[in-house]
């Protein structure tokens, strides 16, 4: 048996991917999927693979990871409550700070109920798989995040996708759902691959016309879209018609964790029936204390919002002027996606940027729409105007070296 498994190896299904990766790395390409940050200097700068690097591929939109109040709250909770909870939220895992962070969310969204999960992934997984049951229909955008798809897969409902942001396609499917069946429409405020936003005003209105409940994932908008930073649904004026808003702490809030807020009068029963909430350990108290502080600070952050949008606009127009193809015609969020001709060029460009001292996200199929290879740039309110100009210079040199512009 020295040669290892031959037939019957369950890993055979990954052979194609293994070969693709080996081919890429054999050419001397630095591995885009095993970058290590040896030191993190600030929300916008780190030592990555030994180089001083500007970070343009994190979701640290508001730069809260190094906020002194956020860190102080976490340290205090560490000292007073210990390192971890060692238990489920419904047993021994609800500490003072778990309740407090849920109260902070209720204040932030002005909603009656808030439920915190260990990650944003679990929030979608748990809520979607639990509320849509056998015989119900989930109507969702084809470009939905993996956590939404996995929530659909874990549940027993009929799953019906529609073409990305297509109002007509959404309405046709809702119209065809059998009489009497429960309907859940799942949308996102900002779609994270291209950084485009959904026409929520029209979509939510269509969903309501057919009596569907609406769940909106606002992971990529919290704190800087909508009057109170509640997301695209607030900006579109339809937040009161959204039955469930899903969000995360791992982006603007700067920690980790996921949540659902809702005004549904029976919402609290979810704490007993939602398995990804019940059968996992609650987050550490320090994470909850930091998150609660961060959420309350995000309620008063006018300057940071303005800086973030300014950065997004400058990068978008600058990249476009250099001749790069972008995911959206206008900057619609803090994500600017640069479309690469193919995976090989994309990987080469990613490496050229890293050597310049810039980290961006390399996104490739199947995570991307239409099998595109993307270099995704996500901005931070703490990027200085000078850093944004430096970034544009790096893109220009790398783009010319790789032959993309």
């Amino acid at each position, binding site marked *: 048996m020295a040669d290892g498994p031959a037939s019957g190896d369950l890993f055979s299904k990954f052979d194609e991917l293994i070969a693709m990766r080996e081919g890429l790395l054999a050419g001397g390409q630095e591995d885009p999927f095993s970058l290590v940050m040896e030191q993190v200097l600030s929300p916008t700068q780190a030592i990555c693979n030994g180089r001083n690097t500007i970070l343009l591929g994190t979701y640290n939109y508001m730069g809260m990871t190094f906020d002194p109040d956020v860190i102080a709250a976490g340290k205090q909770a560490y000292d007073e409550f210990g390192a971890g909870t060692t238990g489920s939220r419904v047993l021994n895992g609800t500490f003072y700070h778990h309740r407090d962070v849920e109260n902070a969310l209720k204040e932030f969204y002005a909603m009656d109920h808030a439920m915190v999960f260990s990650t944003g992934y679990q929030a979608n997984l748990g809520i979607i798989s639990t509320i849509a049951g056998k015989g119900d*229909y989930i109507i969702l955008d*084809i470009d939905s995040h993996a956590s939404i798809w996995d929530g*659909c897969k874990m549940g027993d409902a*009929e*799953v*019906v*996708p*529609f*073409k990305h942001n297509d109002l007509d*396609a959404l309405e*046709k*499917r809702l119209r*065809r*759902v059998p009489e009497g069946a429960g309907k859940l429409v799942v949308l996102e405020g900002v779609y994270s691959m291209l950084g485009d936003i959904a026409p929520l005003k029209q979509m939510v209105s269509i969903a309501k016309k057919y009596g569907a409940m609406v769940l909106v994932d606002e992971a990529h908008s919290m704190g800087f879209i909508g009057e109170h930073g509640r997301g695209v649904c607030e900006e579109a004026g339809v937040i009161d018609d959204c039955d469930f808003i899903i969000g995360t702490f791992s982006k603007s809030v700067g920690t980790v964790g996921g949540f659902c807020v809702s005004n549904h009068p029976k919402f609290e029963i979810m704490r007993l029936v939602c398995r990804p909430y019940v059968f996992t350990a609650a987050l550490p108290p320090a994470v909850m204390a930091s998150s609660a502080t961060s959420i309350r600070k995000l309620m008063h952050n006018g300057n940071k919002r303005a800086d973030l949008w300014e950065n997004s606009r400058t990068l978008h127009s600058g990249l476009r002027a250099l001749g790069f193809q972008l995911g959206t015609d206008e900057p619609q969020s803090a994500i600017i996606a640069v479309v690469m001709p193919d995976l090989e060029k994309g990987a080469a460009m990613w490496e050229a940027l890293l050597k310049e001292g810039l980290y961006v996200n390399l996104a490739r199929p*199947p995570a991307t729409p*239409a*099998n595109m290879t993307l270099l995704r740039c996500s901005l931070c309110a703490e990027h200085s105007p000078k850093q944004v100009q430096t970034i544009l210079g790096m893109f220009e040199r790398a783009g010319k070296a790789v032959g993309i512009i």
Partner: protein
Amino acid sequence: MDRAEVDTTIRSLIDPFNKKGVEITDATSFANDLEFDSLTVMDFVAEIEDAFDIIISMNQQAEIENFGQLIDAVTKLQG
């Protein structure tokens, strides 16, 4: 529509997606013979749904591997 009529309609809908001009029989598989990727499947399914005014959920699609199974499913789904 009976099965034969459904077959005729879907044969005409599949043409633009059948890039390699594969000969279509009941045993023709979407993944292997026609090499449909997930985006092509979505567009093709949307065409059928619109033509017959039905929903073919992903749960139902998972049971459909070849052309014959699709014709059977659509024939049944029109109710």
